[in-house]
């Protein structure tokens, strides 16, 4: 641009302002400074709308629609769940990238890499917790997105294929989360994934199942090869697949438009793509502002949750020789674990989930009702609610409280100090477990001590109470567990190390004596935590250690 003649024509100031405006317009991909000001002031766009230019100029904006129907921009119509699941995928990518810096997918290193990440990397635990929280939230959000679509009947023609790609995305999200589960290489990961892949084994015919299982695990048992495969699935293959299907899904969403609230249009009509001029809400600036502020708010929520509440669990290192009692799948697969308890592996692990998935994907074709109005869809909505309730019941059956109770003595100890994870005793911690012998058949604490502990150490009093009531409960329930005597012995094993010994004796139905003893150890410095509870910040008040 020839500046000199312009300066001659206009003044210097005007030329400079013109250049500045030009630069601004380039950065905003077509919005001039004056138009930006009018946007901020909430003024209506002129005609023709000068705010549409960025949609043709900028890549990220060209995939967004230029305007929406006013009624679908209301928060409570979509809850912005689709946007949110996309955003969570983005969060997972960023945090995952940071985690990859400190992680090598090999059984020799994976677990120590995790402990090193937690104890030597500034914000390392934050990144890991955020990644885990994002993964769990993503599943919740994707499922909620699907439930919303179901309830508003938005899967109906012409959006059947959009729904189908959505079901694929749900499956990919679940697999992404599950494949990430193995990577820390702890007991939780190892056994959940061993159970998960063993379901592939049940795929008929036998040769196919065995091959799929072998391909997933990389060996008859999960080991270095299996870990590498899951790692590659998690960081490479599944994300790529998900990105591909996301674009297919989103293209369809934009193509057909977000379905309007049912009462906005006649039954059987679909007018989402023909928005009357007076109902248009332009993406720039209104929807963009809403979406941005919503995501900023959501990010703040995630950060606060991660800093103060949520902690990703890390159990002891994977041990193929010992299965911890009550191994559970991740919560979003509890329903599958529940099914596996009542049917054999082929039915519950392959056929039923396959049928369920087929039903889910086929919903648009199974539901011939053209109306999307709630009062016309009683059958669909009620059967949806029933399906939800059934899922919750199956999930409950997946928890250790259903059908896999071990012997009473084992169960009592497991309840208080599980083989893996926190539990009442470990959460109390070294300092609040006074040495002594506590016998449920006698006065567990002398009165003076009890009164003292109720003030200074209520958690321990609660523990003793729980120990006693659990023993009494099993005494009542189980006819092979009579006249029990449960003794908890806490003693000093080493400096800074206490031995927690459980001795439980009982008589079975025939009067034969039974005995159970088990020792655990608790170190002064170890911290055990609950996944979803308030964080333990007690280390902040710990005095500096003399080194």
């Amino acid at each position: 641009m020839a500046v000199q003649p312009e300066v001659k024509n206009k003044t210097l100031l005007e030329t400079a302002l013109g250049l500045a405006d030009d630069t601004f317009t380039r950065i905003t991909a077509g919005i001039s400074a004056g138009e930006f000001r009018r946007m901020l002031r909430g003024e209506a766009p002129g005609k023709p709308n000068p705010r549409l230019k960025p949609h043709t100029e900028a890549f990220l904006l060209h995939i967004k629609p230029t305007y929406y129907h006013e009624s679908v921009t209301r928060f409570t119509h979509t809850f912005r769940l689709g946007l949110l699941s996309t955003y969570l995928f983005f969060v997972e990518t960023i945090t995952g990238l940071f985690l990859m810096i400190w992680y090598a997918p090999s059984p020799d290193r994976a677990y120590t890499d995790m402990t090193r990440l937690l104890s030597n990397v500034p914000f390392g635990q934050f990144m890991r917790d955020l990644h885990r929280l994002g993964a769990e939230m993503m599943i919740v959000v994707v499922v909620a997105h699907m439930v919303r679509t179901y309830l508003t009947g938005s899967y109906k023609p012409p959006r059947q294929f959009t729904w189908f790609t959505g079901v694929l995305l749900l499956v990919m999200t679940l697999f992404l989360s599950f494949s990430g589960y193995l990577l820390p290489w702890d007991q939780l990961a190892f056994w959940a994934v061993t159970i998960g892949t063993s379901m592939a084994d049940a795929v008929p015919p036998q040769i196919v199942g065995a091959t799929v299982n072998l391909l997933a695990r990389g060996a008859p048992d999960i080991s270095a090869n299996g870990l590498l495969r899951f790692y590659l699935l998690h960081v490479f293959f599944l994300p790529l697949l998900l990105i591909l299907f996301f674009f297919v899904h989103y293209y369809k969403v934009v193509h057909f438009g977000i379905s309007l609230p049912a009462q906005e249009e006649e039954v059987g009509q679909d007018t989402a793509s023909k928005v009357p001029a007076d109902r248009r809400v332009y993406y720039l600036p209104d929807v963009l502002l809403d979406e941005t502020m919503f995501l900023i708010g959501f990010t703040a929520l995630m950060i606060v949750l991660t800093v103060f509440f949520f902690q990703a669990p890390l159990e002891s290192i994977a041990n193929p020789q010992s299965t911890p009692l009550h191994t559970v799948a991740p919560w979003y697969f509890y329903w599958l674990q529940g099914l596996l308890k009542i049917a054999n592996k082929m039915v519950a692990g392959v056929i039923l989930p396959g049928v369920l998935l087929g039903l889910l994907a086929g919903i648009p074709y199974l539901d011939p009702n053209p109306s999307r109005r709630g009062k016309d869809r009683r059958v669909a909505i009620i059967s949806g609610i029933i399906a939800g309730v059934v899922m919750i019941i199956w999930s409950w059956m997946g928890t250790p409280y259903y059908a896999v109770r071990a012997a009473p003595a084992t169960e009592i100890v497991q309840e208080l100090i599980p083989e893996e994870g926190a539990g009442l005793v470990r959460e109390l911690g070294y300092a609040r477990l006074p040495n002594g012998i506590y016998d449920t058949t006698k006065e567990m604490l002398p009165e003076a001590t009890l009164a003292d502990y109720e003030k200074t150490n209520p958690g321990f009093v609660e523990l003793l109470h729980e120990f006693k009531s659990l023993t009494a409960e099993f005494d009542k329930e189980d006819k092979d567990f009579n006249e029990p005597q449960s003794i908890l012995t806490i003693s000093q094993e080493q400096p800074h190390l206490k031995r927690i010994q459980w001795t439980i004796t009982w008589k079975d139905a025939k009067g034969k004596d039974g005995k159970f003893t088990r020792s655990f150890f608790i170190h002064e410095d170890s911290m055990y935590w609950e996944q979803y509870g308030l964080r333990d910040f007690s280390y902040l008040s710990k005095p500096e250690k003399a080194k």
Partner: protein
Amino acid sequence: MRKPWYFWLYVRSPITKILLGMLAVLISFAALAAQGMFENKRMEAQTDNWHGRSVEKGAEIFSSNCYTCHGVDGKGLPGVAPALHSRYFFTQRMKDVGWAGSLHDYIALTVAAGRPSKSKSQWSQVMPTWSSKYGGPMRDDQVEQVTQFVLNWQEDALTQDWGTPAITSTTGVSGTGGVTGTTVTPMVNLDPFQPFHDGPSKAPTNTITYTVGTLGAAAVGTTAALSATLPQSAEAAAPAGPRPPQELYTAMACSGCHKIDQDQTPDNQGQPGPNQGNLHETAATRVSGEDAETYVYNSIVNPSAFVVPGYPDGIMPKDFKTKMSEEEIRSLVKWILDPNRPK
């Protein structure tokens, strides 16, 4: 479209939206700043946490594999395996074997690769190779956990007295004012180190003032400054009254060498000491003129009087008479010879 009843909940003003967004940014930064402020302390606590957890795991491994030879509290069993919970072990042992590395590495290597034992060594048991690298059952991380557990004795071991027995009360047992069933047992915090006879100790003799003991007097030889006996006062602190023979059998470390649940047969003589499952049949035939009871009694109080052919002399400790009362030895003999003893 009709406005829904919750319409008032919608934030409509763009300015309010922007302000709320800015507030969220502020909250995020505040939370991140808070995290950043205690990041150093958190990392320290996490380092300690994972160390603590590995000590816990190590304790589990020790209490299921190692205690049979090294003793429940790591103070060793005479003639079977040396003490690890010992001042000598933490301060002098490395110098004596000429180990240039750290104690951590010394322990880890011994656990992983084991320790050879000569047939006439003072230790009746060979230290097995534990690491799966050398054919044992443990993974590397488990070897590390046991090592951390053994190292965790350091603080207590360093307070041990080299020589004169001092009676101190145990750390922390009760003291909470009469918790039911708790007994406060005084513990003799004396170095329980039992001499390694593999070479003279380079420790100054005036700091290790063990009284010349009865344990393998023949083996003392060049290591006169470094022979020891378990202090008599340790027994003084033991509970009064005779202990039951089953308990004695393990407490006196008989079980370290003899298998009471296996018969001695030509194919299965028993190592390092003869099997004792069928001793009630064979005892009377060993020494002419001694009936079964006399023979077993003499073998306990004076092991060298008769050594079963094929076994070396001088391995079995000779101080049992000082460690058990007459009554206890008699009951032990009876128990060993009882053909109906539950196996």
